[in-house]
């Protein structure tokens, strides 16, 4: 990286490559982001604000927050448990287990929604039984939460497993030999060690939970004011040619993405957190 002679050191090539890369990032990443806000504000602030205070938009925002408030903590608990079992112990079949935890990343979101329809829908395995007990999962909030948990399933675990494996067991073993209980050791030793990785996983998990579209779209039933999350509300408004409102609601989600990126960068810079895996 300090080479004067190296490929990277040639001045013309360097300027050309930096220019090309900035043009590409500008055209492919920055322009879409800017266009969301520009389209949302194209009829002025009043129209923008009106789209956000509309009752259907409000209920979509509330549902999105509710779904994230359930699915993110569930995945945090699962992720920490899974990482503890996988990183602190040796057992056969470890890499197979990691592959299984990763599976939701390689499943199409639409298929993720479909599997819950096949389980809990009227024609599904448990459909008739659920109907007898008057429990509705598909086309209702529980289905949306389940589908969201599925698509965000690996985020926290994936972040923690390499981190905890790298940190090893010495700290925990020292605490235990000094008389700490297992739970105390986890709270006082392990948790502080993994806090930045955990925060990182939570940030990515939350962004996906609030923004998930495909899986939620399949199980939601699109009942306005009842089972529409923000991304689904954006789709409905867009298909009704209500572009200003669609982009106004979309801009809130874009804002969420920007906040996520800023917090993520702070974790990386300030605390020099090195990621253990390629993100999704």
């Amino acid at each position, binding site marked *: 990286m300090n080479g004067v002679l*190296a490929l990277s050191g040639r001045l013309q090539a360097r300027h050309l490559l930096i220019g090309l890369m900035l043009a590409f990032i500008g055209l492919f990443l920055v322009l879409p982001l800017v*266009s969301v806000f520009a389209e949302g504000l194209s009829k002025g602030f009043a129209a923008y604000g009106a789209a956000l205070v509309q009752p259907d938009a409000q209920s979509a925002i509330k549902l999105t927050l509710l779904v994230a408030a359930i699915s993110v903590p569930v995945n945090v608990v699962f992720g920490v448990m899974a990482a503890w079992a996988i990183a602190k112990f040796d057992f056969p079949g470890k890499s197979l287990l990691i592959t299984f935890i990763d599976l939701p990343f390689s499943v199409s979101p639409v298929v993720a929604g479909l599997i819950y329809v096949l389980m809990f829908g009227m024609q599904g395995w448990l459909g008739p039984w659920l109907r007898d007990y008057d429990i509705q999962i598909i086309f209702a909030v529980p289905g949306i939460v389940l589908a969201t948990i599925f698509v965000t399933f690996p985020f926290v675990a994936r972040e923690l497993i390499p981190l905890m494996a790298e940190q090893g067991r010495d700290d925990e073993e020292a605490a235990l*030999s000094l008389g700490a209980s297992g739970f105390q050791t986890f709270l006082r030793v392990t948790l502080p060690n993994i806090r930045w990785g955990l925060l990182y996983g939570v940030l990515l998990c939350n*962004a996906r939970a*609030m923004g998930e579209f495909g899986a939620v779209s399949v199980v939601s039933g699109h009942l306005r004011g009842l089972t529409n999350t923000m991304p689904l509300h954006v789709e409905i408004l867009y298909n009704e040619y209500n572009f200003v409102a669609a982009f106004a609601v979309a801009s809130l989600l874009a804002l969420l993405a920007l906040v996520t990126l800023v917090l993520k*960068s702070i974790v990386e810079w300030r605390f020099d957190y090195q990621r253990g895996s*390629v993100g999704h």
Partner: protein
Amino acid sequence: MDIALSSQLQVPDATRHPAPPRTPRRKSRSVIPGFGLTMGLTLAWLSLVVLIPLSTVFIRSAGMGVSDFLAAGFSDRALAAYRISFGTAFLAAVVNGVLGLLTAWVLVRYSFPGKRIVNALVDLPFALPTAVAGIALTAIYAGNGWVGQFLEPLGIKIAYTPLGIVMALVFIGLPFVVRSVEPVLDDFGAELEEAALSLGARPWQVFARVVLPAILPALLTGFALSFARGVGEYGSVIFIAGNMPYKSEIAPLLIVTQLEQYDYAAATAIATVMLVASFAILLGINCIQAWSRRRLAA
């Protein structure tokens, strides 16, 4: 069960194993408690949320009979949808392989003002909801959009054509390549390039003979991850695709369409084909990574 076990486990080894352990290959037991509890809950939750629901697709397909399955999963319309999904995802992954490598290269090797912001922006596709990306890209590349208005007079139509699908998938897949290649490029350092250059190699020779072989596994991993994501992508594509059967209808959309028509059999059959394809890609990625580890070890 686990808490009781954990207190026993803290007893020194000698008292627990008066005789030498009979299985010498087994590693010494960890003194850390909680294996049974965390492993049990992990397996239970994994089965309930992921494995059992996923198995429904295969069990339903198995119950369909071969001819019904083939008719539903490989109908003309489904074949056209696979062609579009896999074709556009492949093209997008190729574009990402080139432009992602460029981005990673510049981010690792050069310093320039605003580098940190660009570095953070690379992850935007991970953070931005796909539906938002979809409507934004459509707005830009439509005939009257910011970019579309300049391309339309040239006869290039992006929105509502397969080219639009490729654009959306390039957006979605970019970070996979950049984040796969970046750490390898960083480890690799510039010393080898310097050495090759000082021995008289031309820059493109250094790139082709020294740099590319070293980062190839990482680049292939990024390519495969980008491809896998593109094949299953739904949210960002449906707005820009136009969704014409046989022309610009992707396979995930066809599943949704069949579901909306209550044709569960067809939806399940297509989903099975998609799942098998994604498992094959996953296996491929694992093979690439195993190969790369072996190469590093050698």
